[in-house]
């Protein structure tokens, strides 16, 4: 892309440091030196400023931090830097803005100044922008990074020792810290939850599924003091652990399998999902997991499977809900980088770095230069291939050396074969004039005899004067049009097909050749892929049957833009337009073969060529199929040219400032001592910095997330925000102690989960007594939080009760032929996390039950209680079917005794036996419909699904 001239010059000027600007300014603002200039300012300039600018750039509003009411305010400037560069009107933002050339913001916003006023301002700036110095130059706020560095989360992790002299239950260090605070607050912790409650809680928390009646019985029957520990070990070893915990991470990294824009599908996103699941099942070190996502493509691998994992992991960068259609591609690139910084910042560091895109962070010690230091790293990584609608990056999954060699040779063969097929086609076309004549003597091809959809010149929309002719044969229909080689630039002709369905079509253009024709006719194809212009040499005979030339294959949406436009702009000689043919992909593939079999060969040579073509085409087809079968994955690639990023003033790609060397957040350890490598993006170093044991944020943020996922509330409740606008930790020593030991355990998630799950604080009863009065928010953790089952657990639990849940692990769940997610519904019975996460078509149950916004980092889900949830449970076909199927299963299981059946229904849904009152109630429900037992039992299940004890986790 060609950078704009003006932008470059502005950039150069802004590269001058502020100090210089001030120095220059001082010589001019010193009133003594230019009394005439000051008079000019007071008489001509100030009236303009006061009439048009003060309202927004005065003391009250100071838009963009720019004050024009203070003398010299234009030199101090605002968020975009100085507004006036004395002596340089052409690069002064004030002048650029009032000229309203569309290069920067247009000012004033409601209309343009008179030409006269603009001239005055220009003259004034040219003159050095003289003005009286009344109160000295205004100063700009300076960020006090040092002071802000003392904020707790930027401090190194502290090692402490808890007091251990607490009476009562205490399993380890975690409880010691908790009990310390509880006794300070004079609060008594609740007792341990009963075992029935505990197994349901542990089972949902660790694997996202309810315990089966057998599992409950086994646990209750286990009298040993280590029964709970063994239960936890069993759950940690389950393959479902990774599903439950992987889904937590997918919330954080805005995982989705489509884009809202046009509903584009990410067919390979599932590999990243499965990688995340595997990560938690295998309990690989969490720091390594982060490094793989950040820079897997740059890491060394010892095996192919490791390399595959590393590449798949980098899909982390590409899952954003990007607007690929943005036409300003520089803007698009920066928006992508911005999204990546935002996600990385919140997910891994708990920092809202995105705030520093336009100005120094207002609250946290993150200056704009830090933002562009990070942006510089990410700009060196290519995420999109640009086109009208840009495309995200997919790469071939690395394979074993043998496979790679084999694929390389297939690729080479495909190239060679394609060339010889093309050559053969040409040879055949030269020898085989078409046989589908409307009137052979007149060289007229019948429109109806042609494949696909044909738009003849008679049906096309003409602009300018086109002349009909039938001099040169053959042609389609009764003639063709030409521009008489006149009125160049004034004539176009548009062929608009009526396409029967969306899909891929080969587009062919018919024209009659001749030496008087134009050798460079611009033909533009408007399709769902955007617009593509091709130049056609009409002096040459069309290669297909001497009538058509293929323009390539395009995707068309029946109601969208689909047309072919021929223009005579910039052409010499006659421009001819005969017809345009649109052949559906399936048909186009068959065409050649069909032709070979239906057209009797005119001579032996032709027959031989056709035979050869057919076999080459078949070979090519099978080789191409082999290539297409090669697995691919979403990823990113390093750019060839490594650069540093300039600051974008006010976040705009059109006003660039000083270039910032690539780097990290200055406030966060470890500090970078040497510059980043010139031959790599710097992502590898970024990954090392993020996962450094000296970085106080990364591990703290993650340990706090794990705590939140188990306890239901974080030690720092703003789990994605550890900046100064976030909350303080309730138990800072505990958080640091857990974090330090987490890193010592080689960042093992399972070890951490085990320790927390085994603690008394996790296992406490959720019923509350006096502590709610003193500590209504339960910050001291005297009791457990009662939680609502999330969307996935709710759905999975219903499918378990109905005996329908398909517990297969992993794999793609998107139909191969699916091109857009619009209106997609799934009737899959697999676990909820395998339902395609489509941004335009989330499963209804997800939408209603607070599934996270799939375009944002969501470390903490909403937990709303709204009527649409009740409507869904009462009336949706999903719940209705689960209830009926659960009833059928129960009735078919052989147990005849009603009371026992009731017990089973309760145990399958609520994980416990019914109370006496509940039994009575249930018998009433099932007894009332003797005539239709299945319906009555179905209603029982539905009511159980709607009941509080099913929807909540004690």
């Amino acid at each position, binding site marked *: 892309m060609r950078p704009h001239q003006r932008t470059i010059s502005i950039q150069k000027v802004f590269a001058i440091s502020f100090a210089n600007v001030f120095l220059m300014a001082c010589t001019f603002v010193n009133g003594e030196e230019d009394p005439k200039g000051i008079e000019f300012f007071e008489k001509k300039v100030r009236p303009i400023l006061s009439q048009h600018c003060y309202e927004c750039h005065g003391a009250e509003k100071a838009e963009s931090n720019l004050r024009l009411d203070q003398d010299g305010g234009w030199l101090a400037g605002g968020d975009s830097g100085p507004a006036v560069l004395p002596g340089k009107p052409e690069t002064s933002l004030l002048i650029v803005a009032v000229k309203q050339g569309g290069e920067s913001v247009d000012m004033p916003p409601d209309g343009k100044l008179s030409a006269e006023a603009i001239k005055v301002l220009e003259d004034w700036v040219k003159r050095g922008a003289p003005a009286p110095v009344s109160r000295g130059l205004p100063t700009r706020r300076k960020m006090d990074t040092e002071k802000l560095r003392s904020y707790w989360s930027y401090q190194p992790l502290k090692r402490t020792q808890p007091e251990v002299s607490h009476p009562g239950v205490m399993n380890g260090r975690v409880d010691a810290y908790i009990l310390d605070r509880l006794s300070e607050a004079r609060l008594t912790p609740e007792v341990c939850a009963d075992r029935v409650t505990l197994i349901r809680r542990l089972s949902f928390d660790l694997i996202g599924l309810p315990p089966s009646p057998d599992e409950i019985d086994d646990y209750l029957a286990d009298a040993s003091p280590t029964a709970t520990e063994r239960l936890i070990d069993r759950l940690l070893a389950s393959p479902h652990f990774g599903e439950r915990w992987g889904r937590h991470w997918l919330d954080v990294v805005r995982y989705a399998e489509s884009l*809202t824009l046009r509903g584009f599908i990410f067919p390979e996103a599932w590999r990243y999902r499965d990688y995340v699941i595997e990560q938690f099942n295998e309990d690989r070190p969490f720091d390594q997991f982060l490094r793989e996502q950040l820079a897997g493509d740059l890491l060394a691998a010892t095996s192919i499977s490791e390399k595959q994992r590393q590449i798949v992991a980098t899909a982390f960068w590409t899952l954003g809900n990007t607007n690929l259609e943005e036409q300003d*591609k520089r803007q698009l690139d920066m928006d992508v980088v911005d999204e990546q910084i935002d996600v990385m910042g919140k997910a891994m560091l708990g920092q809202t770095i995105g705030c520093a895109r336009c100005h120094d962070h207002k609250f946290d010690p993150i200056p704009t230069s830090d933002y562009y230091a990070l942006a510089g790293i990410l700009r060196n990584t290519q995420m999109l291939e640009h086109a009208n609608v840009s495309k995200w990056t997919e790469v071939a999954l690395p394979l074993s050396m043998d496979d790679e060699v084999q694929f390389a040779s297939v690729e080479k063969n495909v190239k060679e074969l394609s060339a010889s097929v093309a050559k053969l086609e040409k040879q055949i076309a030269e020898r085989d004039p078409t046989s589908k004549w409307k009137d052979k003597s007149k060289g007229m091809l019948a429109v109806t005899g042609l494949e696909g959809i044909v738009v003849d010149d008679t049906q096309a929309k003409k602009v300018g004067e086109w002349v009909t002719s039938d001099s040169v044969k053959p042609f389609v229909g009764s003639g063709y049009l030409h521009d008489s080689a006149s009125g160049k630039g004034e004539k176009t002709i548009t062929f608009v097909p009526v396409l029967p369905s969306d899909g891929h079509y080969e587009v062919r253009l018919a024209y009659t050749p001749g030496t008087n024709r134009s050798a460079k006719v611009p033909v533009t194809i408007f399709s769902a892929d955007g617009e593509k212009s091709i130049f056609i040499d009409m002096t040459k005979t069309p290669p297909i049957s001497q009538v058509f030339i293929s323009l390539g294959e395009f995707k068309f949406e029946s109601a969208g833009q689909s047309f072919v436009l021929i223009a005579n702009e910039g052409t010499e000689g006659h421009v001819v337009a005969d017809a345009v043919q649109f052949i559906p992909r399936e048909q186009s593939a068959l065409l050649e073969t069909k032709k070979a079999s239906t057209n009797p060969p005119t001579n032996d040579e032709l027959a031989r060529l056709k035979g050869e073509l057919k076999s080459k085409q078949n070979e090519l087809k099978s080789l191409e199929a082999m290539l297409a079968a090669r697995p691919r994955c979403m990823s990113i690639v390093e750019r060839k040219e490594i650069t540093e990023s300039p600051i974008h003033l006010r976040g705009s790609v059109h006003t660039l400032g000083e270039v910032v060397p690539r780097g990290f957040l200055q406030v966060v350890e470890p500090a970078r001592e040497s510059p980043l490598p010139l031959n790599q993006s710097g992502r590898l170093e970024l990954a090392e910095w993020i996962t450094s044991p000296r970085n106080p944020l990364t591990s703290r943020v993650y340990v706090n997330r794990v705590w939140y996922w188990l306890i239901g509330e974080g030690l720092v409740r703003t789990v994605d925000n550890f900046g100064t606008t976030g909350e303080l930790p309730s138990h800072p020593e505990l958080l640091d102690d857990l974090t330090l030991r987490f890193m010592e355990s080689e960042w093992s998630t399972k070890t951490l989960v085990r320790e927390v799950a085994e603690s008394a604080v996790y296992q406490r009863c959720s019923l509350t007594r006096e502590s709610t009065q003193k500590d209504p928010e339960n910050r001291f953790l005297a009791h457990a939080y009662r939680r609502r089952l999330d969307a996935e657990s709710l759905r999975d639990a219903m499918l378990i009760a109905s005996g329908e849940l398909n517990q297969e692990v992993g794999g793609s769940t998107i139909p191969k032929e699916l091109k857009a997610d619009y209106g997609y519904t799934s009737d899959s019975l697999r676990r909820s996390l395998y339902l395609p996460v489509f941004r335009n078509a989330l499963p209804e149950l997800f939408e209603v039950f607070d599934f996270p916004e799939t375009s944002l980092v969501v470390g903490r889900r909403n937990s709303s209680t709204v009527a649409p949830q*009740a*409507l869904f449970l009462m009336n949706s076909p999903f719940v209705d079917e689960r209830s009926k199927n659960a009833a059928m299963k129960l009735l078919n299981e052989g147990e005849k005794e009603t009371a026992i059946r009731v017990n089973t229904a309760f145990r399958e849904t609520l994980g416990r036996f019914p109370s006496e009152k509940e039994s009575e109630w249930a018998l009433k429900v099932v007894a009332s419909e003797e005539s239709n037992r299945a319906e009555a039992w179905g209603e029982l299940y539905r009511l159980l699904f*709607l009941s*509080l004890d099913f*929807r909540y986790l004690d």
Partner: protein
Amino acid sequence: MSDWTTRRQFLKQSACGFGSLAWSALASKAALAETTSAGTLHFPARAKRVIFLFMQGGVSQVDSFDFKPKLAELDGKKMPFDDARQRANTGTGESTHRILKSPWKFARYGESGRWVSELFPHTAMHTDKLCLLHGMQTEGVAHGPATLFLHCGATNFIRPSMGSWVLYGLGSENDNLPGFVTIGPSAGNGGARNYGTAFLPAKYQGTAVGQAGMPAERAVIRNLKSIYSSADLGRRELERLRELNAIQQQSRGVDGEYEAAVASYELAWRMQQSAPGLFDIVGESKETLDLYGIGRKETDNFGRQCLLARRLCEAGVRYIQVTYGDNTANPAWDQHSNLPKHAEHARAVDQPCAGLLEDLARRGLLEDTIVWWGSEFGRTPYAEKNGTGRDHNPGGFTVWLAGGGFKPSFSHGATDEFGHRAIEGKVHMHDLHATILRQLGLDHERLTYRYAGRNFRLTDVSGRIINDIIS
């Protein structure tokens, strides 16, 4: 006092928005949700609700409400223009294009004598109700970005939609209905993001009624229909559920969240009883149906959408969007080629829009309802690629407003002599958002929500209230 009354009272006190149920611990969670208290008005309100008639794809201003005789005069002439798409693609917009005159005749209408093209004969009869903004400007040259900008004030970032902001600011007038309804939304060009809440709480989400491509006749709120064939059976189920939940609550003690869940079933039940009637237009008079063009092939569908908008408006819905569009990448009004196709779309929407204006006025609703008609951008006055259609134009286009305290019979701003770029009385989309919020009593600079450590607003760091258009 029975349990039942207690619950009802509880509901009354706590409900705010579509069946949202506060619970006792909410106060303590509020700090976490990082809400800024909205709900009190910043200005005296001039309007209570908004109906946005979204003309998806980009209506051409120079073929509808922005009459430019110069185009007929110079038709076919090649002239230099600063083309927005080219500027976005290459950094410079200078290029030569062929002037394309409007194929439609213009005439003056109403006391105000405003020019309207023959595409909109019905709307033209209401010009004295309209406040025309001729100097509109927006961001984004392609549908995706511009449509998101229109709805959410951002071309790419994930931001709440305008309806969500309005609902967040004003709350609902009817607790049994969603406060933000979008009728027949398009799945394309941002899809659900155009009525999404992003980081605002879920209860401010727009509720889709039907979707583009689905006949308006079938558009309803999901799961509203009971699975039971008779009301008696439904009532019996509710009774049984009450019993079971009461038993379970007894063993748990007082819990605000349990209360809320129980209350949500009661509310759902009431909605199930009352809301379906809203979608049934059987009770409307023949005269009303005719007004909207319902029953006539061309206008039936959009007419039904508009009539439903009026009914929702009467029922207290705050923000109603009615979309005329489809799910393609080049929706409805997007005539890159074959400009005459505009007539087809105009025929489908003109009478229904006019009918809605008339109906609202007759019922006195126009006084406190803002009707906003417009697209994500306008179109170029020159032929795209020298062909038979017009390309996108975010630099100058027209929208109209009616009711809600906007000056009737008024026009504001102007484009250049070709109708290409706004030159006077420019109104940026941010400004339009700010001004509509102003009429609802909300200050766009103070209607903020704290998320990820900072305050966000619909107008980002821009937006001016256009006082000139307020009566």
